């Protein structure tokens, strides 16, 4: 009976996480806050809370595929397959793309089930062997990803050899520049907390939102794409071999990224795609769904594996502060919750996707992008500037910020054409600066006079990260380089090499 109650808690988590994940800009870490809120509101034991966390995580992973496909808002794990999903959306097959990626996630859950009985034998061996070598494995991974990037000139038409070399190296050098700039940002932000100590754990949020969210939304606004009528059926196009290769590739990549510290889902999936020769959109979508699931749930899974107790990734680390599994039965409870949660979240995914596919065409894509852009910036401001974590105040801050930004952005879009025609760029730029100052002034007066400095700092980080995040889009280079670069100082630190660089840069 007790087990059943815990499983019901995980189902509640799936429902809450699934519904929240449809909202733009939500990240798994935001769910921890919601989970704590539920914990405070309801009298639960800690194991019940972790079941809620797990359910929310699964809901976020599976149902969150809707956000990537219909709203074009990728994060590091979904960026990998955002392109094929968006392409299918433009062919009127968004629902199919969602379901294919969802099947990938379900396949990863099944593989995790199969691995579970062997996990307490295999993973402790991996851990024992690799512990002294983690730093060079990570640095080797980064080296390979940088060295193996393919030029994107698609056959330079330049007449001279130098001209062709320059064309070929345009994307490669941009990729290295993205890595370098992100690395410098990492050195600064990880060594000098830009935000106040009580908000330091939100340091990463403006960076990730800038790298992936804002940059992609800006491109969506510029591209002026229109979503065509969506076909919602029960058939999907998937070959057996695509399923097998895609799911196994994604699972391997996700589990590698989950097991190794610092590595995120994107590089992990990229490596496994190289290793297994992933090709074709179907394989990428399945692999993406599987890899995302394996990365997030796999990272949490290692905490529960008997005789391993490895704390990896955000949710695993946060949970380990509150709770440590002690008996094997808890591991199997965890696995049962994964099985039920995945099944439930997949049903929720199909249900919500069908409904969203029907209404998405009625929404102006640009307007949607504008709303999403406002909300994700609002989230960054809200989490950075709110001086205490009163949930209601936080929600109010986010909503007001997003509302103000939406109005501001909308007015800006209209002003662009007008001012460029009438007065040229300088006046337009002054208008932009004026708008931003006005926004901060209103925000400050309305809500958080104490946290405004942190909010402004977060906006500065967000702006820089957005600039770096736009480089892969404009120079057609790898987006992965952003996070690889950002986390590279951590890898150097593990290798005992960062202290000298930190001193040289003066960031301590």
């Amino acid at each position: 009976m007790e087990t059943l109650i815990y499983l019901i808690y995980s189902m509640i988590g799936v429902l809450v996480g699934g519904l929240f994940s449809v909202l733009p800009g939500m990240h798994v870490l935001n769910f921890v806050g919601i989970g704590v809120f539920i914990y405070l509101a309801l009298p639960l034991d800690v194991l019940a809370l972790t079941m809620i966390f797990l359910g929310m995580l699964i809901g976020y992973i599976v149902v969150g595929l809707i956000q990537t496909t219909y709203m074009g808002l990728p994060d590091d794990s979904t960026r990998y397959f955002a392109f094929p999903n968006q392409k299918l959306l433009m062919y009127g097959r968004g629902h199919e793309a969602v379901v294919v990626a969802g099947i990938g996630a379900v396949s990863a859950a099944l593989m995790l089930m199969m691995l579970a009985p062997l996990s307490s034998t295999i993973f402790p061996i991996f851990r024992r062997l690799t512990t002294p070598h983690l730093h060079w494995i990570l640095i080797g991974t980064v080296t390979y990803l940088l060295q193996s990037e393919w030029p994107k000139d698609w056959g330079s038409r330049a007449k001279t050899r130098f001209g062709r070399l320059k064309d070929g190296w345009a994307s490669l050098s941009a990729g290295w520049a993205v890595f370098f700039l992100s690395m410098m940002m990492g050195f600064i932000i990880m060594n000098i907390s830009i935000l106040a100590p009580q908000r330091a754990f939100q340091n990463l949020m403006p960076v990730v939102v800038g790298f992936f969210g804002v940059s992609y939304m800006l491109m969506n606004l510029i591209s002026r794409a229109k979503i065509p009528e969506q076909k919602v059926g029960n058939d999907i196009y998937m070959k057996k071999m695509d399923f097998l290769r895609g799911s196994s590739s994604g699972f391997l990549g996700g589990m590698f990224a989950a097991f190794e510290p610092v590595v995120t889902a994107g590089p992990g999936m990229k490596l496994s795609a190289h290793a297994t020769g992933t090709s074709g959109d179907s394989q990428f979508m399945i692999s993406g769904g599987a890899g995302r699931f394996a990365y997030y749930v796999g990272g949490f899974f290692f905490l529960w594996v008997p005789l391993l107790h490895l704390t990896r990734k955000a949710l695993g680390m946060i949970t380990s502060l509150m709770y440590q599994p002690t008996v094997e039965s808890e591991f199997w409870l965890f696995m049962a919750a994964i099985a039920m949660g995945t099944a439930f979240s997949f049903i929720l995914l199909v249900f919500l996707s069908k409904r969203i596919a029907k209404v998405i065409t009625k929404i102006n894509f640009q307007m949607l992008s504008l709303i999403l852009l406002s909300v994700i910036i609002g989230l960054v401001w809200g989490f950075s500037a709110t001086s205490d974590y009163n949930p209601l105040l936080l929600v109010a801050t986010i909503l007001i910020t997003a509302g103000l930004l939406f109005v501001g952005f909308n007015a800006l879009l209209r002003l662009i054409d007008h001012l460029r025609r009438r007065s040229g760029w300088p006046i337009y730029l002054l208008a932009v600066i004026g708008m931003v100052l006005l926004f901060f002034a209103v925000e400050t007066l309305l809500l958080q006079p104490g946290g405004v400095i942190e909010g402004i700092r977060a906006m500065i980080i967000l702006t820089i990260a957005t600039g770096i995040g736009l480089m892969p889009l404009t120079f057609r280079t790898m987006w992965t380089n952003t996070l690889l670069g950002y986390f590279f100082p951590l890898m150097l630190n593990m290798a005992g090499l960062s202290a000298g660089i930190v001193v040289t840069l003066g960031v301590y």
Partner: protein
Amino acid sequence: MRGLTHFMMGMMVATFFKSLMVGAAMQDSLLIILGGVFGLLPDTLDFKFLVYVEPQDAVIDPDPHNMNPQDIAEKIAAEINHTDQMEPGKMRRLQTHTLKLGPDLWQSYSINFNKAKRQVEVKVGPHVTMSGMPAFGTEPPTDKAFGVARYNPKLIDVYGRATEVKGFSGPSFGFLKRKDGAVEVVFIPFHRRSGHSMTMGFVFALIGWLLTGVWQVGGVILAGWTMHIALDSFGHLGNNLFWPVMKQRTSGLYLVSASNPYWNAFAIYSCIALIFWNMNMYNASVSPAYTVAWMTSLGPALYILSVILIPWSILGAIYFTYRKKTKGQRSYELFASTTEVAGAAEPESAGIVEQEHYYEVDEKQKPSMFWRALGIGILIVIMVILFAYGPTW
């Protein structure tokens, strides 16, 4: 083979060097990564430098919205005829271009040298994705699909199949005038020449050794580089092992196919298994807590048999049976022809699907069983040396 396979091969041989492994584990050095870097470097040189500095005597760059296969065929035939007038040993190079229609959509066409009829045959194909998946309903009408043009000289082209020009950048062809008067087709003449020679490996190793004064640095550079050349020699397209003494590529051994996912996955898995073996062996120098007793007790032969050979033989049997069963079936993407994609971003997958696997061609005749067995023998000898002497390096 794929880039990751080469990188992992380089890393694997580097982990046999005890001083590098223990140095890495004790956070003294990262020299071990040189194995991976130089394991991948031959392809880096070819596809990021040499491809761009190759001269282009003629260029095929058709209008994707108005394909004229007859024009393409005539231009290629004219180049072959032009080469026929040149002195023996001279080569003309023809660059073909791919035709991009959208973020992940390309107009495909193919070029075939029909030696029996002495004619160049060009066929316009459907739109394809980056992975080469064709889109239904995008094939051109028959009267606009084919072009044929005759050439004069005797042509040597062992490949004997059409070359498809689709995603990435297009392949180049060299037309080499031979002493016997024939013209030989050399596929992507820049590839696997100086950048894939043992000569360059020795030069890099020497530079590494001289710069650092540590012989292991030269050793790991040479080992990583050699594994790349050895692995490529197992494929279809050979290498120019002793450039500049040798002028042409030798034949590949036809033991594996570079694009085959099974062989790539097998090679990578084997490398990881051997790296684990070396970790276990050398971790004892750091702390016995990082070793696994049963691995040590197995010994290398039994470890390789049980961890690599038996599981991959079973997987291989399943894979090749399935492949035989599905032979001839071709994947299609069920996409309509459109060029619009939200977000206007290039596919991230563009960096994953590698171009080189399009370049696995049967340029030369398949070598005799002796040479093929010798190739495997050399690999076994290299591995035996690494197992035997690695712990003393």
